[in-house]
């Protein structure tokens, strides 16, 4: 029931993109069904290339992120480097995607930091060379940016999953059989981990295929992704283009599903190869390569993401900073100073919405999962798909229909509406962060509590929840981060009357002032960062005398 109310906008949103794609949109005079929007879509120059570009970059980014997170964990778990990366994860996760993309441009563009560092001393360039480095025509930097953003997320999901997997004894016993460290972990633990993080991986895939803001920054104007095209159509002043946009949005869903299908097939194939590899009993071949590769990938993620942030921080206090100066020639705190008040105000709104949306989503997810557990229900596939629809559909397509629903029931511009719309996007992430650890929780904990005389409810609050505290907090932190990043849902549901850090950032970044954009990106990162910090620190402090629960081993 609760789920139905929650998902109302999803159905409205879907209808709002599917019906117009077949020419039905009464407010614009489209009252008969036709295939004209699809024909117009097919005739658009470069459509095929754009769809293909979205498709392969999404798959590549997901594959690389998963490989980086998994191999690094396998090779370096329990070392100083692992701890170092663990510390870097929260700041990287907290930075909005668009900020990481901007950081990459600050770093890699012909006028970027990397080029400044060697100019004119080594290169002789007094002016930036005319080279397409970021954005580049091949999509390399674009994929790299997605990997920088998604690897930490998958890494965090792996960490959360490891809470329920007896990985130390497993890999220890594999190692006593002569398997080397990385191989042991990959063969004995990775299959269990992969099973638990299947949903987060699919979410990463869906996100990477359909992301718009990163693509806007890191792809050349002449090589757009499908998501960028859909956004262009929706923003076209000629409202007749809305029909094409709706068809494009449906195609986008199709591309996401196709990528999911290919991923699934790849999973089967890879699974077969993997089993053969395990069965081969090979104990050390590739160990060194994997260790070096895992380290290289993780440090690439760290360096690109970390330096991007450092350059952003420098830009935010620069007054003048021209090529080829390595550091700003004039400094100024005026951007921070001038906007401090507005930022604090926006931060208040952002935090309220994010905290409520994340808390409610966690409660809802726990209630669903607990309900499912007690009634012994199998998770319903239909409801699940509906839950994930907001992640699969281009936001802008989906939100128009959802907004019509809001206006009809007279809720637009209300706090309730903004929080509700945020939950549409926060909910799925919270649910998929939490459901793996929850379902895989060893049932004997609960059984033991019940045999000791506790009721189901007591068992839930006194045993299940404490054991799951870390995944719950991580899920909440992910939820906060997702909520903080929402732009269109805030604008649509809030009727433009809710100024959050992200609405400020998007509006101001349209002016293209690097210093302002850098400052906003940093301030957008603060709240999620605090959230992730709390998710790590709270269990560590609460369970400081319970090693297995504290998360630090």
């Amino acid at each position, binding site marked *: 029931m609760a789920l139905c109310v929650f998902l109302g906008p999803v159905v409205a949103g879907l209808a709002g993109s599917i019906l117009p794609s077949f020419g039905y949109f*009464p*407010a*614009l005079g489209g009252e008969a069904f036709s295939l004209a929007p699809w024909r117009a879509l097919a005739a658009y*120059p*470069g459509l095929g*290339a*754009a769809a293909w570009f979205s498709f392969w970059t999404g798959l590549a980014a997901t594959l690389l992120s998963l490989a980086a997170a998994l191999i690094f964990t396998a090779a370096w778990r329990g070392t100083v480097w692992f701890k170092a990366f663990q510390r870097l994860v929260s700041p990287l996760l907290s930075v909005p995607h668009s900020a990481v993309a901007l950081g990459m441009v600050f770093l890699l563009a*012909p*006028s970027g930091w990397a080029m400044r560092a060697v100019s004119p001393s080594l290169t002789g360039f007094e*002016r*930036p060379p*005319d080279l*397409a480095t970021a*954005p580049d*025509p091949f999509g390399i930097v674009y994929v790299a940016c997605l990997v920088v953003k998604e690897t930490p997320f998958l890494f965090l999901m792996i960490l959360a999953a490891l809470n329920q997997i007896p990985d130390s004894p497993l890999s220890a016993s594999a190692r006593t059989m002569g398997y080397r460290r990385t191989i042991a972990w990959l063969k004995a633990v990775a299959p269990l981990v992969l099973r638990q993080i299947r949903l987060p991986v699919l979410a990463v895939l869906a996100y990477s295929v359909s992301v718009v803001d990163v693509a*806007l920054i890191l792809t*050349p*104007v*002449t090589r*757009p992704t499908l998501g960028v095209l859909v956004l*262009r159509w*929706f*923003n*076209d*002043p*000629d*409202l007749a283009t809305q029909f094409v946009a709706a068809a494009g949005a449906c195609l986008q869903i199709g591309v996401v599903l196709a990528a999911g299908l290919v991923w699934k097939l790849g999973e089967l194939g890879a699974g077969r190869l993997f089993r053969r590899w395990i069965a081969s009993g090979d104990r050390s071949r590739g160990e060194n390569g994997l260790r070096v590769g895992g380290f290289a990938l993780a440090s690439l993620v760290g360096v690109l993401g970390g330096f991007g942030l450092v350059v952003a921080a420098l830009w935010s206090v620069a*007054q*003048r900073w*021209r*090529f080829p100066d390595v550091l700003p020639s*004039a400094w*100024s705190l005026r951007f921070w100073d001038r906007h401090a008040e507005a930022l604090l105000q926006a931060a208040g709104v952002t935090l309220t919405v994010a905290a409520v949306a994340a808390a409610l989503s966690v409660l809802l997810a726990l209630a669903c999962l607990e309900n499912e557990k007690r009634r012994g229900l199998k998770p319903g596939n239909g409801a699940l798909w509906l839950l994930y629809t907001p992640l699969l559909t281009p936001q802008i397509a989906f939100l*128009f229909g959802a*907004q*019509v*629903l809001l*206006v*009809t029931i007279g809720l*637009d*511009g209300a706090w309730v509406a903004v929080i509700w719309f945020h939950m549409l996007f926060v909910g799925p992430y919270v649910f998929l962060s939490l459901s793996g650890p929850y379902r895989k929780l060893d049932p004997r904990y609960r059984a033991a509590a019940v045999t000791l005389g506790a009721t189901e409810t007591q068992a839930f609050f006194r045993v299940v929840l404490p054991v799951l505290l870390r995944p719950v907090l991580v899920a909440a932190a992910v939820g906060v981060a997702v909520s903080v990043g929402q732009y269109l849902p805030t*604008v*649509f549901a809030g*009727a*433009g*009357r809710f*100024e959050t850090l992200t*609405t*400020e950032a*998007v*509006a*101001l*970044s*349209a*002016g*293209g*002032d*690097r*210093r*302002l954009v850098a400052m906003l990106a940093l301030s957008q990162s603060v709240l999620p960062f605090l959230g992730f910090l709390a998710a790590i620190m709270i269990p560590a402090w609460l369970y400081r005398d319970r090693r297995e629960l504290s998360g630090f081993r």
Partner: protein
Amino acid sequence: MLGPLSANFAGLMARVKGALAASVLIGGLAACGAVVSSASAQSADARWEAVVEKARGQEVFWNAWGGAEVYNDYIAWVGEQVQARYGVSITHVKLGDTAEAVRKVLAERSAGRSTDGSVDLIWINGENFKTMKDNALLYGPFADRLPNFALIDTEANPTTVSDFTVPTDGLESPWGMAKLVFIHDQATLPEPPRSVAAILDYANANPGRITYPAPPDFTGSTFLKQVLYETAADPAALQRPAGENFDAVTKPLWDYLDAINGSLWRGGADYPKNSAALRQLLDDGEIDLAFSFNIGEASSAIAQGQLPETARTYVLDGGTIGNTHFVAIPFNAANREGAMVVANFLLTPEAQARKATPSIWGEATVLSIDRLDAAGRAFFDAIPSDPASLTPEELGATLPEPHPSWMTRIEEGWLQRYGS
């Protein structure tokens, strides 16, 4: 700084009001005779008084592009002023794209909300206006009911009532005059090219140093219009809708673009996204020429530390494309009277002169100076000149916007040739 302003304020308003009443009266006299006009002037006065009365206490949600600090600061200043003078408060809803506001109004109509809408005032022009007008999403006519509208000479300044050749019919009120201006860095390029033909020669001699924002970004589209206008055999054809003559009229444009494309920045394989990105490239030293639709861009960018002190503005010898931008009120606006009061305030000499100040915004006024009284002129006389910007006299001729049908097809053609 605000102290003396508000102290003077009552006297000032009295003067402005006097001037207004007089100009309405004179205008009326000329048109239709003494008795009728003074009566209608009085009743118009009374009607406006009623609007002002009703506006008091309203909160106007002004949906306006929020991408530039200088514009946002100006809007904030307007908010302070109308609050102090009329008790009307403004909430600036900062948009990344004006189309967002258009869609919001559309969604409200789809849901059947014909009153109490969430958008009260939109900063708008061109295609967005045409869309809203064609779909009957606007309130009005209201512009000619604003007392200060009389300060505009719509005959001398036809773009104030014709938005990209589409008649405004009083559905939007003029706010400012935009004109394509070019910006160069004196230190690297002392003698910039002064015609589109010269720009082509410069690009071919200096590959990679010239580019333009990708259409449909309006600055990029305006550059194409400029080329179209300068190369077309008969520019007058552009004022009528494009028809079968499209290929013939636009052929020189495509020849020009084909000739310049390989010499552009990135060899024409990528384009900046908008005029802000273009300006950034100029500051980075990647390119030699930027252009903007904001006459005061160079001055405000220097003041903001976004361009070198040596940046200068210039215009092409044959004149450049110019147009007017407006504010409009959606059909279902909840605070329509407050929105009208704001639109009227935007047309006061004080607000227009402030907007024309290079370090604040630097845009030409829509008012006709010869219709202002001494107090009104004093505001404009007090504007300090700025070496990076041009004076109104230096801005040269203004070429009219072509009919929108030309750009729709040119943008399609551009996309097919260079966009993918």
